């Protein structure tokens, strides 16, 4: 029994693990292609046909390599390119915080002294500005 028990967060979890490991799931094509095209013994040398000789670029791009770029776009490798650890984004983040604080203060001030109607107009205008900053931040 060497499996460490990680006390991981909430117990809410969905899983498709079969109850018994010996249970066979019908393999999907992606999993099969991944193995037969990219794994298994490769025999180089003067044989008649070797997968290495065949231009697989299209298939590979479609099935395998493309997934890496997608993963990158989705930020799965955030530890390699963590936007929050880069200077530019940290500045943007700080600026965003400053603007939010200022906006909140102004909203409060307006709410105290202005009639309800005009205060709402003001706020909406400001919120749009803030939203733009937010969206930049988002990228």
């Amino acid at each position, binding site marked *: 029994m060497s499996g460490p028990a990680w006390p991981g967060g909430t117990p809410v*979890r969905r899983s498709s693990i079969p109850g018994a490991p010996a249970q066979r799931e019908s393999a999907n094509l992606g999993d099969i292609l991944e193995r037969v095209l990219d794994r298994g*013994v*490769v025999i180089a040398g003067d044989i*008649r046909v070797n997968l290495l000789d065949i231009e697989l670029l299209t298939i590979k791009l479609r099935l395998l390599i493309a*997934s890496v770029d997608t993963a990158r776009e989705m930020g799965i490798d*955030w530890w390699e390119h963590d936007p929050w650890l880069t200077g530019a984004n940290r500045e943007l983040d700080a600026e965003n915080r400053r603007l939010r604080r200022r906006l909140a203060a102004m909203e409060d001030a307006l709410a105290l002294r202005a009639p309800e109607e005009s205060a709402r107009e003001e706020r909406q205008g400001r919120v749009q500005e803030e939203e733009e900053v937010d969206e930049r931040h988002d990228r």
Partner: protein
Amino acid sequence: MTGEHGVYLYAVTRGAPRLCLDDLTGVASRPVRVIEEGELTAYVSDVPLTEFGEEPLRRSMEDLAWLEETARAHHRIVEAVARSAPTAPVRLVTVYHDDAQVRELLRERHSDFLTVLARVADRREWGVKAYAVQVPAQPAAPEPETGPGTSPGRAYLQRRRTALRGREEMWRTAAAQAEKLHDALTGIAAASTRHRVQDPKLSGREEPMVLNGAYLVDSAREREFAALARDMTDLEVEITGPWAPYSFTALPGEAAHDDSVAR
């Protein structure tokens, strides 16, 4: 016999065949036979070069329907062989000129094959894929700080801030959990490797994949392995297998071709 044929190689095992070859239909609906040399057995089919020559393959490998049919047939034979004995699966469309050339391979790489086959004996490959569970785009939970006095603008910003943080957090948490899960599973497995994460188009799942691991597990530890995979994380986990040991049978000297081994 008209037309040229090649010898299509599926897999190599140790010892005499222990399965009924008559039940097997290989690529291009061809029967499967064996070539025995020393302690090794190669499983092969005779295939027409009009279909399995280099030029026809260049075209047909781009044809997803052909590729699927061929990959599934290849896989079917490899799996059947792997159920009968420790097996080294060979990559798709490895075609030899003739039997003599296959025998030469078995003689030349005899000890390499034996080493690889010893490593996978009494072990099976399991795939573990983990997906980041999506946080809802619009959090339904009310903001704890939002009181009756909070302006609509602030409430909006707070919601937005929370949504952004939630997404960031989700990634960090999911990636960290994937690392932990892989490390823990590696602790149980005899060997492990991480495949590239699959695109949602390939995985058929909306949730982004954060782990696509392969693990070579002793038969005696499969239950423990599955329990750990199932219980350890909050990620959505999917186990596939058992597989023939596709990911663990690189012959010595070919590891450099394989980028995932380095991970």
